[in-house]
């Protein structure tokens, strides 16, 4: 579950760096430590998209994976589908059963960075 993932990751980082205490992580994310504690123990429904993204960034987790664990889809992805619903719904359904390597073959671009 989302809370377990956050807690496991945070405690792993805390072993090497005290900045990952419950209090300090909550402070950087902008929520109360008690609320973060409840999230970690799955005592409250998953927080909103922005909070999940902030927690993911702080703990170096993939925000899309964390949102999926919370049953959510990033708003930028929703916007992409909303703009061309026929094309993207058709594409996603077509790729539904495809293995990872086949999907990468379709969508993977060579990256261009800073040079």
């Amino acid at each position, binding site marked *: 579950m989302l809370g377990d993932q956050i807690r496991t990751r945070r405690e792993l980082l805390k072993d090497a760096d005290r900045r990952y205490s419950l209090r300090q992580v909550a402070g950087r994310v902008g929520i109360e430590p008690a609320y973060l504690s409840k999230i970690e123990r799955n005592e409250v429904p998953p927080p909103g998209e922005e909070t999940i993204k902030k927690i993911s960034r702080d703990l170096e987790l993939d925000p899309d994976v964390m949102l999926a664990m919370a049953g959510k889809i990033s708003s930028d992805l929703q916007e992409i589908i909303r703009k061309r619903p026929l094309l993207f719904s058709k594409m996603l359904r077509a790729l539904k059963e495809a293995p990872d390597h086949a999907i990468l073959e379709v969508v*993977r*671009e*060579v*990256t*261009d*960075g*800073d*040079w």
Partner: protein
Amino acid sequence: MIQLKGTNLVLRFPQVHPKAKASIEFMRTLRVPNDGNTYPLPAGLGSFELEHIEDHKAQLPEDWLKRGGVMLPMFQSEAMWISFNGTYPIALKVATGKINAITGELWTNELTDEPQNYVVLSEQPWLDGYAVEQGTVRQFVATPLGSGESAEEQITGEAAFGGIQIQAFPMKREVYKELFESPKLTDEVQQYLEIPAFLRRCSEPAMGLVPGGSIAQEIHKDEYGLDAWDLSAGSRCFIHTVNSEAWSELTDLPMPHKPISARDYKSANIPWFKYYAQDKKALPGSAILQKLKSKKEKPATKREDAEIGQNMSDLPVVKLRRSDVVTEGVF
């Protein structure tokens, strides 16, 4: 967008035109002798392998990862030419160590026509080296980055980048429609498909490229003009050339090929090529690149060079034209 398909970098610009695509392949070849003579085009003896750089990020330097792109393994004794395939006109800039291979100038993200800093696909089927003078290029030859020999180090005094850089700009959709989608031009356009490109298929981890021996090759002048290119649709790629000695350590993969020797080339009776495009004007070449020193020759290489140089007359030379029909050679 640029995708990696096998050993090809595939350029696609679907936002400009469905036909706006081309592929680029880096071909392994023999180093032509650096003896003052100008040689015909050597054949390609297979492609250089390419790998997404992110697939090997655990062992790679941080600055390589920041640049993105692909990795290409290369032996220090190897040379390369670059093969272009596609029918849609694309302006392509090619640099090594961020030194433009057509003008000798430092890399910029701009396309310029004074001097022309790009080649035009598919008018230009191949690029074998640095454009040093009209009708002559000096071959792309590998050298370890940091040796002081690479074109980059000779011009900038630094071994900062190495590798190969490309940037592509497709022809504007409206220009293409006007020039190539009118019915009367269909036959002429078809000829582009018939360029027999595949006939030629018959320390520091980073590798740089240095001018080697001279090869007869024209870099064609852009007949469309700078306004024909869609400058808003450019795509770039950094190709990290990796020394064969470091390839396995960085990627956990074996070197995918062995270097080609002059003896291999000669014993296989592989032909050389001459390419004619009589209706095309050639660029004058770069005075900057002309001044560059060649790779220092090792004694063994010199012997091989002398041997292959003396026996040039024994090897067949195949003449190619743009309109030649594609046939498979026997290599």
